[in-house]
Every structure is written in structure tokens, then in C-alpha cells.
């Protein structure tokens, strides 16, 4: 551990840091712009200058950029040296020559890194008397607002968007003091990670566009820590509320999961909470007749009592509802009557993944861990669409490979420009096999596009090649050839990764991935697995091992169940319309709980308004099996409440015992852990357990929160008592626990002098390490190695295709396939309309052409979009896209003339 001297005081620092990191970790305030913990150093802004001395006798010293200078043993620097101080102030003076000084009307104001650094640097007097240059702004689409005049040319946007996230349509133009950061022409930013520009940009060039409609200063937002509900990765988020409206989502740093970044679906999908489709009070439908009749809570519950008296009740759970809520339903109807709310294929896939992760030998890696792989196989999954942050992390592989090479030249990994020089010609050992060309293919060493059946065959071939002693003959087919190459790369790696999922509904892919990883593990490699699951709590639901949806259908069809409770689930997304219609028609009584009006809720007899995650705490289990708790940012709207509370009330109404003692979500968690021991660790999520120092609640409102009385003055001048929230260690108040926010509860990165998200380092023990050196969330499953890998079930064969016939394969689309985010107008704007995908040389249709398709009984007219690289003979069916009916696989589509 090197010792460095700052202003003649010795400090021990971690090895391999640069001086800027070292100073920040030691708690010194040193301003910077172009450095970013995830992007490394390039030395462009010159803001981080310090004085360095050769030795004790050197009194003159020289200015160096802290971010580009290693914090080596014996380094002597002065931060407060007058020359360094003056130079740092000059940087701001220069940046301000053209900056519009429009903080009062700028969305970034109050959480602006440039404001912070200006104050920190001490520049305050303007000497420039010449006119400022101005720029024209661009329309960058629904997510990002552009205001180029505020730019301070730190290059962070391009370095993130282009170099880090692999986006190609944002860049820097022109030269000298006329630099322009933007697109070639107006138009929506194409990268799935564009929203991070809001946080990457140190000033107000890129701001959150949906937030702009109802902009609220940072300190006026009520905030809470949450978990993204839009996919299975469990990225941590911070929600911001004002006037009962969820106004924005920001990244909440988690060192093992999302790190510093979110995808655009996670950032902009929140608007479903504010949607007109929200259900805010109980509703009663006359069978088949709209409109619904609103009910009071009492009336609804008494209606329920009457319904429950009539025969057997079964419950259908949900992969997007919290674990507590699913458990409450299970407790209400009894384990035997608790059914998974997912299709049979999904159910089977989930069970396979659960078994692999619980009983196999290879652990599920974290998102950050995936990026540390030195070889990876992505099998049958377009991860940019189904698990966006995985794609972002796999993009790190190339950089890591170069960083290893750089170490050979004594070049530290934080030297971004140097490492990138090495990275540009060095693709990593990333192998991608999918039905079509994916957005990550530009990072891949080799890719393969094939049908699901062929992909399973490819998986088996990789497995076989791991054992093979001789390379295949020259003339083998592409699948075998690539399998050999893939296997060799995986074998050569120290930390090989196999990532897959079941977007294609192909259990064989899951088994092949598990078998390959297990094989590598057995050979002594630090093998890792990564499964992309369909929804935010798919794993939580799987761990409850419910019966399949098909069994529920059967129970209703056979008349053994009179009443069906459908929990936060639109069954029309799970099975073909006719099947669901039949179930709903056959069931005597249907009760639905949900946040939004869906095709299912309008067919129910009784609907309870379920509070979404923004309004009710809940625990989600992500794809690696990590349980994390999300907290409400605002009280439920109308008479909505957490579904488990409705279920508790329903139990009471029908005199069912076992749920009556639940006062808070922690009580539910305790019972859940009792009933299903695999959930034991979630009882540790309770802040009273995980944060022993926490005596009292943390305020959701900042110490500068304004207008508490005024914002309600048109209703009453009396300030009401803040609502209680027994489910969170958080208060709807400005008052409360004044200590540090525990890692799982970080909801405002804010420290003296640091008002922007760059304050984060004040919450980390080391830069990019865990928050306060503590992990958050709890892993529920770790491999027991009790079972060897299951055999790879061969893929469901397709009947041989006749002329004009295509095999239908599901295709996941980041903006469109997910149920809740597509309700957000900004996301909907980025979603494609209903369509089917065909390969470039399909012989039937060109981009934009309408075709009639017959799929089983279904005859439908669809617009064709050309999907690059889609394997011949396949027709891609965008799953979940509004306007696209759910179809059951396997299926064949025939183009009708």
C-alpha cells in the first residue's frame, strides 16, 4: 500500500490509483470534469490540477493533472498550492467564457456538477467582455433534451455513449472552440442507454425530457430507493415524486448490479404509475358490461365476502408482483391452489433455471461479474433487448482485455485513452448465437444466426467440443465450426461465462448453458452462468414453485374452482386470447388486483386497486437470485394499497386465518421465510435487522424541501399529519434520522459541496466499490452442487416447412415487449408499431409491406419489418408488443396471397 503525501501529511492509499481517485477517496475535494469513475481518465478538462513535488526539498514543484498521475509510493502533492488554486479557478473562468449562466432556468440547477465545481474552484468574477458563441439545439427524441450552449466540452457524453455504450449516432463535431456534441441530424438517440447522458453530462446539455414537462428541483422531490420493475436484472433506482406524481427515475448505484448506469426502459418506463389507465378504487363489473361501477372499500370487501362463500377459490400469481404479495395470495388460497401466472413454457424454463442455480455447481454471476469475463458465450438471447444492462456490461470485455494488455506496458487501467488505443483492434472472446443479428454483435469475435433448434444443436456441439481432442474436419458446417472455436476460447479463459435466457422458449438452451458451464467448472475454470429471465420477480415466483397456469385452466374447466383471483397479471399476455377468454368465461367469479386497466381486469367481476412498486414496498428476486427491497416513494393513490394488504383484508372477510397478524411487510417476509425456507435471507432485508444503528426513520424529503404547506393550501391551510408507512424505514417528512443513508436506502447522493450525482464517491468506501463497504440485497440461492447437469432436451422439432411457411420465433423488444414501461408515453414513442420480422432475403416481403399470415386458427394482417440477420425460414413475432396477439409455440406461419 503506497504512502503519498498531501500538503506534507502522509496517507496510505490503495495501490494502482491515480491521484484524483486517491484524493477523493481520502475525502479531499478536488474538482474535475472529464474524469468519471466508470470512464477513467483522459486529461482533457485540466480541472484536477495539483502541484507535485519531486521530494521534500523541492519547493517549486510542477502542476500535474491528478487524474493522469499515478498515486505511487512517495508521491508528494499540494492541493492548496496557490498556483494550482489559481489554475483551477482559471479553468472555470475559461469554461464560463461561453457558458450562458442560465442556472435559474436550467433543469440541472441545484444538482449540477458544473455549479459545484465552480463554487469549489472559487472563480466568481467575470472579466470577459466579448460576445458568447451560441449553438442550435437538436431534437434528440423523447428521452433527452438538448441545450448545447451549456456545454463545457468535457467529452464525457461521447465517451460514455460511443466508447462505453457502443452507440454510434452521437458524436463530437467541428473543432477548436466551436465543438458541437450531438447527432448527425435531428432524431431520436438510438442507444438503449441514452438516458445516462442526463447523469454523465456535468451540466445541463442533456436533461431528462419527460421530467422537463413537470420539472422539479432536486430538493423538492420526495425520493425513495427502489428496484426497477421492467426486467429481471434488479437494477437499483431512485424514484422522485412531487404532487402525487412519479416524476423521475434515476440510477441508484449498486456496485455488483447496475453500477453507474441504467437502460432507458428503466429510466423512462415509470410513467405507467401516472397513467390514465391506473385503477385507483375498487371496481365492480357486470359480466361483459362496461362501464365499471366504482365501489367503496367496504362495499368491495363485502362483495368479496359474498363471492368467497361460493365454492373453491384459486389464485394466479404474478412474476411482476412482489414476493410478499405472491406469498399473501398463496397463503390466502393455500399452496395447492396457488398457480403461476406465466405460460407453461415460461414456467418450465423458470423451474429449470431454479434447479440449475440451486442444485448445480456453477453460480449465477452478477451483472458486474459478467463484464469481468475473459470469454463469453451468449446463447440464444438478444441481451440488449431482454437484459439491456447485461449488454452494457459485456461491452466491458473488450476494455478489460485491453487493460490486461496495458498492464504489460505498466499502463494503468484508468488511463482510458491509452487502454482504448489497445482496445480498438482487439475484439474480446465474445461469441453470440441468436436467431438474428443483435446490437451487441459489433463486440463479438464470432456470431451465428440460426433457428432455435439449430441453436440447441450448437449448444450441444460446444459441449461436445469441450471434450473433443481434435479439431473438426475442414468441411464441417458453420454450427460445428463455430462450436469448436467457442469451446476453445471458453477453455482458454480463466473466467468463462455462459449467458442465456428463454426469450426463445427453448429449455434446451438453458440446459446446454448449464452443462457447458458445469463442464468448464469441472475443468477448473471459474465458470459463471447468467440467465436472463422474463420479468422483475420471475425468480421470486419460481422459488415458490407454484403450479402451472395450464393446471389452473384445467381446474376451472373441470369446474373444481369457482372463483379465480388474478394477481397483478394480464393473462392475455400469457396465453392465446381464446384460451384466456375461455377461462374467464368458465370461472364463475373473477377477482383481479392490478395497477392498470388491462384486457384481463375489464373481464373481471371485481377489481381491487393494487399499488404499484412506487407506492408500496415489495421484495423482488432478480435473475441471480438476489432479493432486494423496493420502497414506496409516495402513499398509494386513491384507495389503492399493496396487493398483500388487499389479500389480507380479503382473508379476513372470508375468515381465513394466518394473515391477520401482518402489520408490516416485514411480518409477511417472516411468514414467507417460515413457509418457504429458501426465502430466509429476506427477513434480513428489514432495515431494523440490516441497519442496527438506524434508530428512527429516514426522511424521504430533503432538508431543503419547500412548499410543504403551500402545495396543499388550495385544499386546506392546515398541514396534515404525514401518512404513516409501516413498510419502510422511511418517513414522508423532512424530519428523521440524520445519519448516513445505509447502502440499501441511498436515495439522495448529496454531500456538502457536492449537489450532483457525482457526490456518490462520498458514499463509497473506495471509488466504484460497494456503498459504505457493504453489500446490499441478499442472495437466496447458491449452488449446492448436489446435482450434475441435466441432459439437454432436444428442441421441439418443427414440422418441415412448406412453401411460403415460416417457423415463428418470439422476439423481445426493449421498448415494447415489457408490459408496464410501454404505458409510458416516452417509451411508447420509441416502440415500433405492431409488425412481424422477416429476414433480409425472405423472398416474400420488403420493409413496410403488409402480408396476411395464417398461424393455426389465427388469420392476421401484419406489417413486415426486416430483421437484420434473421435466419432463413424464421418469422420473428414481437412478444408483448401492444396490438400483437399472444400465440402459443411452436407455431408455423403461412404467408397467404
Amino acid at each position, binding site marked *: 500500500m503506497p504512502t503519498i503525501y498531501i500538503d506534507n501529511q502522509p496517507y496510505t492509499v490503495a495501490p494502482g490509483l491515480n491521484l484524483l481517485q486517491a484524493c477523493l477517496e481520502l475525502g479531499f475535494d478536488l474538482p474535475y470534469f472529464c474524469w468519471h469513475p466508470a470512464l477513467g481518465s483522459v486529461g482533457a478538462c485540466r480541472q484536477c490540477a495539483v502541484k507535485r513535488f519531486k521530494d521534500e526539498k523541492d519547493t517549486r514543484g510542477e502542476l500535474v493533472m491528478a487524474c493522469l498521475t499515478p498515486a505511487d509510493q512517495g508521491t508528494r502533492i499540494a492541493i492548496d498550492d496557490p498556483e494550482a488554486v489559481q489554475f483551477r479557478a482559471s479553468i472555470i473562468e475559461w469554461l464560463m467564457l461561453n457558458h450562458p449562466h442560465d442556472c435559474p432556468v436550467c433543469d440541472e440547477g441545484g444538482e449540477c456538477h458544473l455549479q459545484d465545481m465552480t463554487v469549489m474552484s472559487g472563480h466568481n468574477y467575470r472579466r470577459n467582455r466579448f460576445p458568447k458563441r451560441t449553438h442550435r439545439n437538436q431534437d434528440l427524441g423523447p428521452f433527452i433534451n438538448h441545450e448545447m450552449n451549456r456545454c463545457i466540452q468535457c467529452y464525457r457524453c461521447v465517451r460514455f455513449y*460511443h466508447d462505453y455504450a457502443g452507440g*454510434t*449516432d*452521437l*458524436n*463530437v*463535431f*467541428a*473543432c477548436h472552440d466551436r465543438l*458541437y456534441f450531438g*447527432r*448527425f*441530424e435531428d432524431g431520436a438517440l438510438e442507444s438503449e442507454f441514452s438516458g445516462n447522458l442526463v447523469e454523465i453530462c456535468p451540466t445541463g446539455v442533456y436533461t431528462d425530457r419527460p421530467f422537463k414537462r413537470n420539472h422539479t428541483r432536486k430538493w423538492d422531490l420526495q425520493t425513495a430507493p427502489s428496484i426497477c420493475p421492467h426486467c429481471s436484472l434488479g437494477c437499483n433506482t431512485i424514484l422522485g415524486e412531487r404532487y402525487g406524481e412519479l416524476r423521475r427515475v434515476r440510477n441508484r448505484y449498486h456496485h455488483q448490479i447496475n453500477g453507474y448506469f441504467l437502460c432507458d426502459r428503466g429510466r423512462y418506463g415509470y410513467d405507467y404509475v401516472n397513467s390514465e389507465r391506473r385503477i385507483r378504487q375498487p371496481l365492480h363489473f357486470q359480466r361483459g358490461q362496461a362501464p365499471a361501477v366504482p365501489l367503496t372499500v367496504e362495499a368491495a370487501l363485502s362483495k368479496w365476502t359474498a363471492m368467497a362463500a361460493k365454492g373453491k377459490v384459486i389464485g394466479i400469481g404474478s412474476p411482476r408482483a412482489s414476493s410478499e404479495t405472491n406469498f399473501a395470495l398463496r397463503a390466502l388460497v393455500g399452496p395447492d391452489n396457488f398457480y403461476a401466472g406465466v405460460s407453461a413454457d415460461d414456467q418450465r424454463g423458470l423451474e429449470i433455471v431454479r434447479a440449475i442455480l440451486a442444485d448445480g455447481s456453477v453460480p449465477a454471476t452478477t451483472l458486474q461479474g459478467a463484464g469481468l469475463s475473459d470469454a463469453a458465450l451468449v446463447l440464444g438471447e438478444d441481451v440488449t433487448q431482454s437484459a439491456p444492462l447485461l449488454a452494457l456490461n459485456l461491452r466491458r470485455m473488450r476494455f478489460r482485455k485491453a487493460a490486461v494488455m496495458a498492464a504489460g506496458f505498466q499502463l494503468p487501467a484508468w488511463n482510458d485513452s491509452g487502454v482504448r488505443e489497445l482496445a*480498438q*483492434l482487439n475484439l474480446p472472446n465474445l461469441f453470440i448465437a441468436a436467431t438474428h443479428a443483435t446490437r451487441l454483435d459489433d463486440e463479438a469475435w464470432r456470431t451465428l444466426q440460426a433457428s432455435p433448434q439449430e441453436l440447441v444443436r450448437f449448444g450441444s456441439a460446444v459441449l461436445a467440443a469441450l471434450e473433443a481432442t481434435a479439431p473438426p474436419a475442414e468441411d464441417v458446417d458453420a454450427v460445428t465450426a463455430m462450436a469448436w472455436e467457442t469451446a476453445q476460447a471458453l477453455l482458454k479463459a480463466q473466467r468463462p461465462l455462459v449467458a442465456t435466457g428463454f426469450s426463445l422458449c427453448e429449455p434446451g438452451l438453458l440446459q446446454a448453458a448449464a452443462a457447458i458451464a458445469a463442464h468448464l467448472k469441472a475443468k477448473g475454470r471459474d465458470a459463471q452462468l447468467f440467465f436472463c429471465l422474463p420479468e422483475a420477480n420471475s425468480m421470486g415466483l419460481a422459488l415458490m414453485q407454484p403450479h402451472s397456469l395450464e393446471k389452473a385452466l384445467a381446474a376451472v374447466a373441470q369446474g373444481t374452482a369457482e372463483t379465480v383471483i388474478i394477481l397483478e397479471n394480464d393473462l392475455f399476455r400469457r396465453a392465446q386470447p381464446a384460451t384466456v377468454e375461455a377461462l374467464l368465461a368458465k370461472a364463475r367469479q373473477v377477482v383481479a388486483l392490478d395497477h392498470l386497466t388491462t384486457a384481463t381486469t375489464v373481464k373481471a367481476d371485481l377489481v381491487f386497486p393494487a399499488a404499484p412498486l412506487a407506492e408500496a414496498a415489495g421484495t423482488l428476486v432478480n435473475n441471480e437470485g438476489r432479493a432486494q427491497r423496493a420502497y414506496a416513494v409516495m402513499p398509494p393513490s386513491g384507495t389503492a394499497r399493496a396487493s398483500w394488504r388487499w389479500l389480507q383484508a380479503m382473508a379476513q372477510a372470508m375468515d381465513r386465518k394466518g394473515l391477520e397478524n401482518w402489520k408490516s411487510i416485514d411480518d409477511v417476509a417472516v411468514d414467507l421465510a417460515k413457509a418457504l425456507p429458501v426465502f430466509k435471507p429476506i427477513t434480513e432485508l428489514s432495515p431494523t435487522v440490516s441497519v442496527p444503528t438506524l434508530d428512527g426513520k429516514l426522511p424521504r424529503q430533503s432538508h431543503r424541501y419547500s412548499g410543504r404547506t403551500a402545495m396543499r393550501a388550495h385544499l386546506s391551510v392546515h398541514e396534515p399529519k404525514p401518512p404513516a408507512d409501516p413498510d419502510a424505514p422511511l418517513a414522508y417528512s423532512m424530519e428523521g434520522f440524520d445519519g448516513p443513508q445505509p447502502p440499501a436506502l441511498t436515495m439522495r447522493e448529496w454531500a456538502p459541496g457536492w449537489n450532483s450525482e457525482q457526490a456518490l464517491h462520498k458514499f463509497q468506501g473506495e471509488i466504484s466499490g460497494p456503498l459504505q463497504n457493504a453489500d446490499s440485497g441478499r442472495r437466496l440461492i447458491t449452488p449446492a452442487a448436489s446435482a450434475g447437469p441435466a441432459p439437454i432436451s432436444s428442441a421441439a422439432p418443427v414440422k418441415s416447412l412448406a412453401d411460403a411457411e415460416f417457423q415463428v420465433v418470439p422476439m423481445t423488444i426493449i421498448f415494447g415487449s415489457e408490459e408496464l414501461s410501454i404505458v409510458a408515453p416516452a417509451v411508447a414513442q420509441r416502440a415500433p408499431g405492431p409488425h412481424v420480422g422477416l429476414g433480409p432475403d425472405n423472398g416474400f416481403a420488403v420493409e413496410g409491406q403488409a402480408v396476411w399470415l395464417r398461424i393455426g386458427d389465427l388469420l392476421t394482417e401484419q406489417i413486415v419489418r426486416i430483421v437484420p440477420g434473421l435466419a432463413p425460414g424464421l418469422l420473428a413475432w414481437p412478444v408483448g408488443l401492444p396490438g400483437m396477439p399472444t400465440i402459443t409455440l411452436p407455431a408455423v406461419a403461412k404467408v397467404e396471397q
Partner: protein
Amino acid sequence: MLSPTEKEEIVAAMAHYDLKKAAGIDALRIVQRHRGWVSDDTLRDVAAALAMDPAELDSVATFYNLIFRQPVGRHVILICDSVSCWVMGYENLLEHLQRRLGIGMGQTTRDGRFTLLPHVCLGACDKAPAMMIDDELYGCLDAEKIDAILESYK
């Protein structure tokens, strides 16, 4: 659409580098030689030929002085505005040129014959003041000489 000749020349330029993209500057210069300037559409076509995003290529194109992203006249006059020519009185010459052509710096004559652009030192300091028209360098300029030179460009 790139012409077959342009395409051929671009492919030939690629052979000089380890990465396709590296030929971007050569490719821009090639199309500019054929078309005088690089329009947005042309830039898109060149980018496609190099498998680049237009933004990435335009980022490069707009960095350099001599990739013209706006239409220019049939002949481009680069007048040296650097120190030796300045000492030798280029400012008077510039005034003369502008009066003669009836245009300011950066503009194109109405008949589309000339575009007048400033340029850094042409490396003809011993023959200052100097200018370049298209590929030809002219030194030791004075007003009369300029008039005669302009006459030779139609």
C-alpha cells in the same frame, strides 16, 4: 450514390490501413475531388461504404479544414493568412481580392466560379504573400498578378 470510380478509389484507399474506417479521410477527399464538396447525402453514402455511422464520419469530416461540408465554387481560393504573409501585407491583397470578386471571406461568387477561404501558412513564406487556387500555388502576389491569375480560371 457513389460513382463506380469513386467506389473503386475508396476501396483502393482502404488497402493502406489496418481498419476500414481509417480510410475515412481519404474517402472524403476522394468524393470531394469529384464533386467539389461533401453534401450530407454524399457523406451518408461514404459512411455506408466504410460501414460507419454518418455521425462518426461527420465527426471526422468537420474536424479538418479542407473537407468542405458546404457547396463551394468551381475553384477554391485558399489565401494564406499566417504570419509571413501577414508581414508581407496580405491584408491589402485580401481586400483587393474581395473587391474584385465581390464576396467576403468564406463566400462564393454569384457565378459559382470562386470560393474564397482563409488558410494557414501554405509553406511558401519565402514567396509571401501566397495563395492557392485548387491545386496550384501562387506566390509573390500583388494586385496585378492576382488579376491576371483570376483571369486564367473560368
